[in-house]
C-alpha cells in the first residue's frame, strides 16, 4: 500500500514539475540546483567560508527578500489607492480604519525603512571584507546605483500618503533641485543661460520643475512620484538586480580570499 506522499510524488503532475527525486542524496542535491528556476541563481556548491552567516550577514539576500515583500505589498496597496489629491489621503484612511488585515501599509512602510538599512549593512559588509576588489569592481558600481535607486524608491513612496509628513518631507528634499548648478533657477550659473535676454532656466523649466511637474508639490507631483515609485524605478531595480546577481556568479561567486 503506497503512502499518499508516494502517490503524489509518482503522479504525472508532480513529475512534470519536479523532474527528479527529492534532494536527499548527493546526486539529487546537485540536480535540484540545476533544474529549478529559482535555485539556479545559486551555484551547486560553494566554499564553506563564503556561505557562513557570520561572514556574509545574509544582508544582500535579506535586502532582495525585502524588495520582494515591497513588491507584493505594494501591488496589494495599489488596489486600494488612487493617486489623486481628492482620494490619496482618504484611501489611506480607509486602508487604516476599514480594510481587514490592515497591516499592509505598515508592512510596506517598515519594509522600506528596513530595506534602506539592510542595503547599507550589505555595502558595509562588502567594504569590510574588501569584496569590491578585482574582479568585482563593476558589481560594486552596480550596487551603488542600486543603493541610489533604493533611496529614490523610498523617497518617492514617502509622498503617496499625502499627509503633512509626506508633502513637507518631499518639499524639503526637492527644494535642493532648485539649486542645481545651471539647471536650477536658483543654482549657480543658471542666469548665464539666456537667449536674447530671455532666461531659459525659470521656476517653470528647471530641474525641480522636471522632478515635481509643477512649481510646488501638487497634483502633478503626486502622479509623477506614483509612476516613478510603482513602475519606473522598480523596473530599473529589477534589471540591475538581475545584472548584480549574474555578475556575482560570473565574477567568481560569493567573495572569499583570492
Amino acid at each position: 500500500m503506497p503512502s499518499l506522499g508516494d502517490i503524489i510524488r509518482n503522479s504525472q503532475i508532480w513529475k512534470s514539475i519536479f523532474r527528479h527525486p527529492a534532494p536527499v542524496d548527493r546526486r539529487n542535491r546537485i540536480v535540484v540546483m540545476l533544474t529549478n528556476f529559482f535555485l539556479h541563481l545559486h551555484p551547486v556548491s560553494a566554499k564553506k567560508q563564503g556561505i557562513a552567516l557570520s561572514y556574509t550577514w545574509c544582508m544582500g539576500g535579506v535586502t532582495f527578500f525585502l524588495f520582494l515583500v515591497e513588491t507584493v505589498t505594494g501591488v496589494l496597496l495599489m488596489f486600494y489607492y488612487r493617486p489623486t489629491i481628492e482620494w490619496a489621503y482618504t484611501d489611506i484612511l480607509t486602508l487604516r480604519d476599514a480594510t481587514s488585515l490592515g497591516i499592509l501599509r505598515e508592512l510596506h512602510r517598515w519594509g522600506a525603512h528596513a530595506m534602506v538599512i539592510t542595503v547599507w549593512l550589505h555595502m558595509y559588509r562588502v567594504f569590510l571584507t574588501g569584496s569590491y576588489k578585482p574582479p568585482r569592481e563593476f558589481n560594486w558600481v552596480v550596487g551603488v546605483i542600486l543603493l541610489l535607486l533604493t533611496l529614490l524608491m523610498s523617497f518617492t513612496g514617502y509622498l503617496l500618503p499625502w499627509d503633512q509628513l509626506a508633502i513637507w518631507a518631499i518639499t524639503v528634499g526637492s527644494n535642493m533641485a532648485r539649486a542645481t548648478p545651471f539647471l536650477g533657477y536658483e543654482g549657480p550659473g543658471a542666469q548665464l543661460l539666456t537667449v536674447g535676454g530671455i532666461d531659459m532656466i525659470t521656476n517653470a523649466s528647471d530641474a525641480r520643475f522636471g522632478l515635481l511637474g509643477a512649481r510646488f508639490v501638487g497634483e502633478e507631483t503626486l502622479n509623477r512620484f506614483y509612476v516613478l515609485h510603482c513602475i519606473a524605478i522598480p523596473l530599473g531595480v529589477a534589471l540591475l538586480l538581475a545584472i548584480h546577481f549574474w555578475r556575482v556568479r560570473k565574477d567568481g561567486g560569493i567573495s572569499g580570499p583570492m
Partner: protein
Amino acid sequence: MHGLTYEEFLSQLSGFLCGYYVLVASMNGLFALYRWKRHGEGQLALAWSGLGVVTLIMAAMVASGNPEIVKYISFNEGIKGFIDTLMSPTTYSLGSLVILGVMFYFREVLVRPNVAWLGFNLMLLFMGMSMADSDFAAIVTKPDNVPIVGLIFLLAFFTWLATSKAVVNDKRIANGELPLEATESEKEKVLVWPDLVYTELICMVALTALMLVWAIVLQAPLEEPASAVKTPNPSKAPWYFLGLQEMLVYYDPWMAGVVLPSMIVAGLMAIPYIDFNKKGNGYYTINERKFAYLTFQFGFLVLWVTLIIMGTFLRGPNWNFFGFYEYWDSHAVEAMNNVDLSQYVWVEFLGQPLPKPDPEASFLSKVLVIAQREFLGILLLIGYFAILPPLLAMWDKKRLFQPMYKRMGLIRYMVMTNLMLWMALLPIKMLARWTFEMKYFIAIPEYFINF
C-alpha cells in the same frame, strides 16, 4: 507626548519599558548561561546573572508606574541638565569622532565578548533610563524614528562582529598564518542544497516574523492631510537624507543638496578603482588596509551616520539644536552672525568697504570685480584641490602619499586625493564655523555661488 502629566506619561510607557527590562534581563541570563557552559567562566556568569536580576528588579520598579519609584531608575534633572548643556553641534560631532577613534584604538580589548557585552548593556541601560524622560521618549518612539534606533544597535552589533573577526585575522597574519577564511577547512566546498538554501529559508522566515510583529505593534504614521499653507516646524526630509539636510547648516543648497551628494555617489563608485591594495580581498582585516578602512569609516560612521542621528534626534524647530532631554521649544532663538571670508579680508583686515560690481557693467568687468573681492577664497580653493595633493606627495615621501602617487599615476592620484578633500570639506567648514564664525569662503550672491 506633551499635554500629558508625567504620571499619565509613565502609565502609558510603563508596560513597554517593563517588557524592555524583562528582555534585557533574559538576555543577560542567557548570556551568563552561555559563558558558563561553553567557556567555563563561572564568576563572570555570576556577574551577568546578577545584572539580569538587577534589570528584573528595574522591570518591577518601572511596572509600578509610580514617579516616586521610577525616579530611582532614571536620570535625575541634574544629570539630564548637565548632559543637555554639554551637548551642542560642536561637542556632539567632535565627541562622536573622539569616541569612535578611541574605540578603534582599543579595538582589541573592546571586541572581547564580555567587554562588548558590557558595552551593549550600557547602551541598553542608557536607552531604558532615558526613556523615562518624556522629551526623550517623544523623539525616540516617533514611528519613523524607530528604524534609526534599530540602525544604531544593528551598526553597533555588525561593527563589533566585523572588528572582532578582523582582530583575529590580523593576529593570525602577524604570526605568519593565513586569515581564518583562507584555511583549508574553510575553503572546503559544500553543497548549496542544503547548507545555503536552508540558511536562506530560515532568514526569510525569521525576517517575515519580525516584519509581522513590527507591523502589528507599530502603526505607520499618518498626520493631518497635506496642506501647502501650514508648514510644520521642523520640516524634515526622510530620515536617510537628514545628513544632507544637516549639511545645509554649513553649505548652500547647491552644495549640500546637489554637488556633495553627487560626489558621495561618484566617490563610492570610484572606490574599487582607486584602492590598488591587493590585500584584504575576501576576508576581514584592518591592519592590511588601514588607510582604506579608516577613510571609509570616517565617511560612513562619522559623517553619514552621526549626522543622520543628529538630524533626527537633536534638531528641533527652526533646525535648532536640542539636547536629548530638552523640550523642542519652537520659540528658542539661536543668534547667528556669521561672516564671509571676503568680509574678514576687506573690512576687518584692509579696513575698506567690500568692492561691489556695478550692476550696469559688462559681464566681464563684473566678474573681475568679484574675483578681486573674493581672491583669497578662490586662491584657497585652487590651492586646496590642485596644489595640496602634489605638496602632500612631495612632503610625505615614505609613508602614504608619495608611494600612492608612484603606484597610482597622476590622474588616479589626483582623483583619489580630490575625492578625499571633498569629504574633508565638511569637517573643515564645520571647524571654520565653530572657530571663526565663517559663513562662506567664497561669497558670490550675484551668481548664487556661495561656497
